[in-house]
């Protein structure tokens, strides 16, 4: 009889209980003391069934074995299924314009690391292209009841008239087909007017504001072409938005740089001083030599602050209260649903980005880039290009990831970040592996604590969109 040994998992503790996060299935199981004893024994080395039977009942061994927490010779985890070739679209990100009234130095669309090649292409999307895009979304999402359009830019609101046309056209079309469609947009908030805010609220359009925190942090990079900061312009507009748009939660999206890493202060300002419903943070995407790039030590500091804020989140969750740190909510949703990703995100699969010219890109970050075009809304996706993009991005082609326990949630990380860093969308983002594992571990502990002490709260995450 072959020997038993440990399978692949990440063990963690939360709320005084012991859990396993199984890899690659992403199942989370709580252990009792006999099963824990078996695992402790196998940490010392392989053992026969008789050895294990001496410390635990046979059914303990069988259960651990069936769940692949312990394995025998010849075990090979079944490979993740590939998404089907005709995987239906769910979300389209429409770049209504590639023009922007700000000149943020770190911008991935205009900054030093840009991938876009907008020369000779339309600067603003016209209605014909928008209509063709919507038609493409409807035909390519066959079988889905609910679909989604995100408006993006450039600065989205620089083409607000088209946004309204698209909302009307797509809503009518959805009603005809008895399907539901919802809309959201990302904006820098400089062009918000009372009329626009009323419209967004009336149409239940979700709004994400790109905002980097207090005036001091925000104005470091989010500036007009003349270098003047945009905080003073947007602050009253954001307050008006938060006061008058009540139909959807409003989110702030913070880009962290080496010069703006005060997570706690930024959260406090955006959540409590201004009143955003949720605040999400992401480190800037950049090649490593930029001055504003966050180095390893900086990432450690960010992780420490994330953990401090996450502890606050846990206190809220145990009292059954909402907390607005969306990085935790997003990760908890993925952990609760047990996602095990073949690809880091839906780019080029359930989601595409469309540029003002109608070119289809894997996502909004690749829009207007000749290198990454996957097709055109009038002719659809070039399946060969799509396959190439998806097969390079597949977790099985990322050898470095094959031994990492965090791969079910990470899957190698953002395609665009990988391209900027390594020149290949399929390259694993090795510069933040420790960060991802540290953060996932923190969120697992929070998950375990909530599961132990306020399990009803986890229902919030059953339906939350997981990447």
């Amino acid at each position: 009889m072959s020997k038993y040994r440990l399978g692949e998992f990440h063990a963690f503790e939360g709320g005084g209980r012991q859990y396993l996060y199984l890899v690659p299935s992403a199942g989370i199981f709580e252990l009792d003391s006999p099963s824990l004893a078996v695992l402790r024994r196998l940490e010392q080395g392989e053992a026969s069934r008789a050895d294990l039977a001496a410390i635990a009942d046979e059914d303990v061994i069988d259960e651990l074995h069936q769940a692949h927490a312990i394995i025998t010779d010849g075990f090979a985890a079944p490979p993740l299924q590939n998404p089907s070739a005709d995987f239906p679209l769910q979300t389209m990100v429409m770049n209504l314009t590639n023009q922007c009234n700000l000149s943020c130095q770190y911008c991935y669309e205009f900054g030093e690391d840009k991938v876009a090649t907008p020369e000779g292409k339309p600067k603003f999307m016209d209605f014909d292209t928008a209509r063709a895009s919507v038609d493409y979304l409807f035909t390519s999402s066959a079988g889905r009841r609910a679909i989604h359009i995100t408006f993006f830019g450039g600065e989205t609101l620089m083409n607000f008239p088209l946004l309204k046309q698209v909302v009307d056209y797509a809503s009518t079309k959805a009603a005809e087909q008895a399907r539901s469609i919802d809309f959201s947009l990302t904006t820098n908030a400089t062009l918000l007017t009372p009329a626009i805010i009323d419209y967004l609220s009336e149409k239940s359009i979700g709004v994400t504001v790109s905002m980097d925190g207090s005036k001091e942090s925000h104005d470091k990079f989010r500036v007009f072409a003349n270098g003047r900061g945009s905080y003073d312009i947007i602050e009253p507009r954001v307050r008006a938005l938060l006061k008058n748009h009540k139909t959807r939660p409003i989110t702030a999206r913070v880009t962290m740089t080496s010069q703006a890493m005060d997570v706690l202060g930024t959260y406090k300002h955006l959540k409590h001083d201004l009143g955003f419903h949720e605040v999400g943070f992401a480190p800037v995407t950049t090649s490593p030599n930029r001055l504003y790039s966050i180095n390893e030590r900086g990432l450690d500091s960010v992780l420490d602050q994330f953990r401090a804020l996450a502890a606050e989140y846990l206190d809220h969750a145990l009292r059954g209260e909402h907390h607005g740190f969306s990085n935790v909510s997003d990760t908890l949703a993925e952990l609760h649903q047990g996602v095990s990703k073949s690809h880091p995100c839906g780019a080029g699969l359930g989601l595409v980005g469309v540029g003002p010219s109608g070119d289809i890109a894997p996502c909004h970050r690749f829009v207007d880039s000749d290198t990454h075009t996957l097709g055109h809304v009038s002719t659809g996706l070039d399946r060969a290009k799509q396959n190439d993009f998806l097969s390079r991005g597949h977790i099985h082609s990322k050898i470095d990831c094959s031994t990492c326990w965090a791969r079910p949630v990470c899957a190698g990380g953002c395609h665009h970040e990988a391209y900027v860093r390594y020149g290949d969308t399929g390259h694993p983002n090795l510069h933040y592996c420790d960060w991802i594992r540290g953060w996932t571990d923190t969120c697992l502990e929070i998950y375990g604590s909530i599961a132990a002490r306020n399990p009803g709260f986890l229902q919030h995450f059953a339906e939350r969109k997981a990447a």
Partner: protein
Amino acid sequence: MKHLRAVNQKARRIEDYLAANDDVVGLQAPAGQRPHVPMGCSLVFSPGWEVDSAGGTAGLCQPVERDLYDCYITCFWPAQVPDHLNNYPDWTAKCAAATKDWRNIDLVFP
């Protein structure tokens, strides 16, 4: 499961899957749709070498060990593993009746 408590949604799916797959039944129909007729493979319990629709052995309605078992003694196959003459004389010692006891046969890796 008694010792592992499923906590997240995926763990509950694993638990359901294991509960539903306690026994190996060829091309098991979804619960509630019975009777069913196994299709797509041999009806006898002594198939030859076969692969499933995906070209592997994971989806066979009988485990691949059964195929090997068929070669073990009865079939002329000079290079089979396990072989009963030299290296694995006791491979089927715990398998008196293949239709009942095939679970006792381990895979071997030369």
